[in-house]
């Protein structure tokens, strides 16, 4: 009787699932790492709660962030999430490097623990680091670049964040309660079927990805409409900044590429929970369809990740070369072709499944075709530097390293696009090196460059350059050390996902790779030191004028930090790189003829509700606590229906007089500041007003 009761309350959850306790019984290094991670999550969470209470920050956090619909605040929350997950993902990567350095015939991790590590590492880095980072950056930058007050659907923006947080929360909870999937970030059945993995691991993966995927779909819809409908008057599509173009293409990809993964996860869930036979071994299931559906999503996903970084690079290369972006039209066409072509190559992720040569060749050639527009982009950035005045600032370090490393990744990509060669290096560390080579320089460097570039716009001071350089070069050096050896052992035939190996020839390379892991850790730490030092020294790097880099697009025509309403008066746009053109004409800082009241959308609880009850819903489903799942689902449904019945909440009105006062005060401050040449860009006298320096100079 009582056991039945507890079974209903706790589902299949029992004390055995709390494996952070096992280290006390079985203190091996493997268990200590496993439990240590769980304790880090528990204690980290507690520390955050204590700190927030101690400094009485719950109120401001709630008011200014959690219920806010301000796109900048939502963007910051996305990036904070990405930062937390980046720490976990990098540390997991470093532990894996350590294991393989020691993996000749053994090592210190159990096979199961290692499998969990590569599964969570991939899932986290793709879905909960990269996606939130780029979504956050798009959130922050796009409305500013197009001269909008906010996104088209502010409430849905908050809802997207809530769903993403719920997915991330489930992955974090899996460290403490039960275990994560061991099926990799792709979760191929039948390995992940209930037959082989009856435990909660694959369910953690499925619900995290499903929730985050729904959030991403909504984000995509939101930004397509925002970019197509909220642009300032005069900003035609062909006057949009490149970052906005890439954001548009990424948003379109989000709308169309997420459904396949929603379908594949939904089908796998039906297989696991209801005994369906979509992908099972027997009774007519077809696991090949899972690979097909997953990569129908997975390949466009790569471009969802990489296009915004391309956008960042396009912005910074023009700004730090003091020059117009070369080949705007070319870049737009290249971006769009990449977006469409990305839907035609998914089969190259499973060339080795047994389909015929015609099909493999067709998809192989389609894959190589993507190299053409991608190459054009790199050449366009080089042409932008040509006859420019290049300042090797921190974002430029990322850009230059990216260009060099990315073409090497592209080379390995062309190699992999050949089915006959892919047969040899598929599933080896060569492949692992390849996609890290695309994603670390191609995504992470771009995001970090964007973070450095736009940081002053949000917070009103620049990031410390010294620690920025240390971090950037450590990322570059660490990346090279970690992943170049993987190309080598991959060609030698070392498979991915192997906890140990017997071939002694692999070990020196794996040790080199582990050294790289240490350098990457330094890079990660330097980012946090940089943040600390920058906050400490913020008075020296104060950005008052709002234009610390002599930049070119609309977002730099605003004060730093940007007010909640973004623009005092929405500008009319008459040119590409409108702010640069206006500055050249001496019209960078104009007083508008009149000010008007500004309407801003009201707060919403939707994000918080979805984050909390989405997590609870997923947790209930994973542990078969049906009551919890049903209750949480009901709460979310009621929240949506309630909002539909009640209509939109009243927004906030900022009176014209207040806007005028703030804007005039800023214009006056800009007038008082001494314009700074690029010579002193990184010095204490740069307070965000740039001296005009764009006269043509012959050699």
């Amino acid at each position: 009787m009582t056991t039945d009761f507890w079974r209903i309350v706790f589902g299949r959850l029992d004390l055995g699932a709390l494996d952070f306790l096992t280290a006390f019984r079985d203190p091996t290094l493997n268990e200590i790492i496993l439990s240590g991670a769980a304790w880090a999550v528990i204690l980290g969470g507690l520390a955050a709660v204590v700190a927030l209470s101690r400094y009485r920050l719950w109120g401001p956090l709630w008011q200014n962030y959690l219920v806010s619909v301000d796109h900048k605040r939502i963007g910051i929350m996305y990036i904070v999430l990405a930062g937390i997950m980046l720490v976990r993902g990098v540390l997991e990567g470093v532990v894996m490097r350590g294991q393989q350095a020691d993996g000749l015939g053994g090592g210190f991790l159990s096979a199961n623990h290692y499998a969990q590590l590569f599964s969570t590492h991939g899932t986290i880095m793709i879905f909960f680091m990269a996606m939130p980072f780029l979504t956050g950056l798009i959130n922050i930058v796009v409305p500013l670049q197009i001269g909008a007050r906010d996104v088209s659907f502010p409430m849905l923006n908050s809802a997207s964040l809530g769903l993403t947080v719920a997915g991330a929360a489930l992955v974090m909870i899996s460290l403490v309660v039960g275990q994560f999937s061991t099926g990799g970030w792709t979760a191929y059945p039948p390995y992940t079927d209930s037959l082989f993995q009856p435990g909660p691991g694959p369910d953690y993966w499925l619900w995290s990805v499903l929730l985050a995927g729904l959030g991403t779909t909504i984000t995509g819809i939101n930004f397509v409409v925002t970019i197509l409908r909220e642009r300032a008057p005069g900003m035609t599509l062909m006057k949009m900044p490149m970052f906005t173009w890439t954001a548009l293409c990424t948003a379109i990809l989000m709308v169309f590429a997420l459904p396949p993964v929603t379908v594949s996860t939904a089908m796998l869930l039906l297989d696991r929970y209801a005994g369906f036979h979509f992908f099972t071994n027997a009774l007519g299931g077809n696991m090949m369809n899972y690979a097909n559906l997953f990569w129908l999503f997975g390949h466009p996903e790569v471009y969802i990740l990489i296009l915004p970084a391309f956008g960042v690079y396009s912005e910074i290369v023009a700004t730090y070369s003091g020059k117009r972006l070369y080949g705007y039209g070319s870049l737009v066409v290249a971006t769009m072709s990449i977006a469409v072509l990305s839907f035609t190559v998914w089969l190259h992720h499973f060339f080795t499944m047994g389909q015929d040569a015609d099909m493999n060749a067709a998809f192989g050639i389609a894959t190589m075709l993507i190299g053409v527009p991608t190459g054009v982009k790199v050449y366009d950035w080089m042409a932008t530097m040509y006859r420019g005045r290049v300042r090797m600032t921190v974002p430029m370090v990322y850009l230059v390293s990216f260009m060099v490393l990315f073409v090497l990744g592209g080379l390995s990509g062309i190699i992999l696009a050949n089915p006959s060669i892919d047969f040899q290096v598929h599933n080896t560390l060569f492949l692992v090196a390849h996609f890290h080579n695309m994603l670390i320089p191609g995504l992470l460097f771009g995001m970090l460059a964007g973070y450095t570039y736009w940081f002053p716009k949000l917070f009103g001071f620049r990031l410390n350059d010294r620690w920025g350089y240390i971090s950037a070069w450590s990322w570059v050096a660490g990346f090279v050390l970690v992943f170049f050896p993987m190309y080598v052992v991959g060609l030698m035939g070392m498979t991915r996902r192997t906890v140990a190996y017997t071939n002694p020839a692999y070990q020196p390379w794996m040790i080199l790779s582990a050294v790289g892991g240490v350098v990457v850790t330094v890079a990660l730490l330097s980012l946090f030191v940089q943040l600390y030092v920058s906050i400490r020294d913020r008075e020296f790097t104060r950005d008052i004028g709002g234009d610390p880099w002599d930049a070119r697009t609309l977002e730099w025509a605003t004060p730093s930090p940007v007010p909640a309403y973004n623009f005092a008066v929405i500008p009319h746009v008459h040119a590409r790189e409108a702010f640069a053109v206006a500055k050249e004409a001496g019209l960078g800082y104009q007083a508008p003829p009149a000010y008007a009241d500004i309407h801003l959308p009201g707060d919403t609880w939707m994000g918080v509700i979805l984050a909390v009850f989405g997590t609870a819903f997923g947790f209930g489903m994973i542990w078969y606590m049906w009551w919890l799942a049903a209750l949480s689902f009901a709460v979310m449904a009621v929240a949506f229906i309630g909002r539909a019945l009640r209509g939109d909440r009243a927004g906030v009105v900022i009176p014209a007089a207040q806007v005028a006062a703030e804007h005039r005060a800023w214009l006056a401050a800009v007038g008082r500041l001494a314009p700074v040449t690029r010579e002193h860009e990184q010095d204490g006298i740069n307070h965000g007003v740039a001296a005009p320096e764009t006269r043509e100079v012959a050699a």
Partner: protein
Amino acid sequence: MSAPQSSKLNAQGYRHDLRGYLTGFGLAVVLTVIPFAMVAMGDTLDRATVIGVVAVLGVVQLFVHLRYFLHVDFSPEEREKVYLLAFSALLLFLMAAGTIWVLVNMNTRMMGMG
């Protein structure tokens, strides 16, 4: 969605719009009844022909619905929507036809034994 100018125009507009819906409905009924009837006739018709007709009429009916119920046309205001539909149709084709192509190919190549 501006309010109609006068009740006379209003009545005219209403009749025009109503005719649109009824035309769409009529066409949809015809386009539904024909394939059902052909299938109902059973073995008297060639199977491939019936499948072809069902497919073609299904696509025609899709356009009827888009035109008369979803009011999609080629006017300038609707151009964006047409682009969206065309793009979606392209991706739908790539994914759905691609899935069938890939899996049929693989299924046949996984069968061969001996």
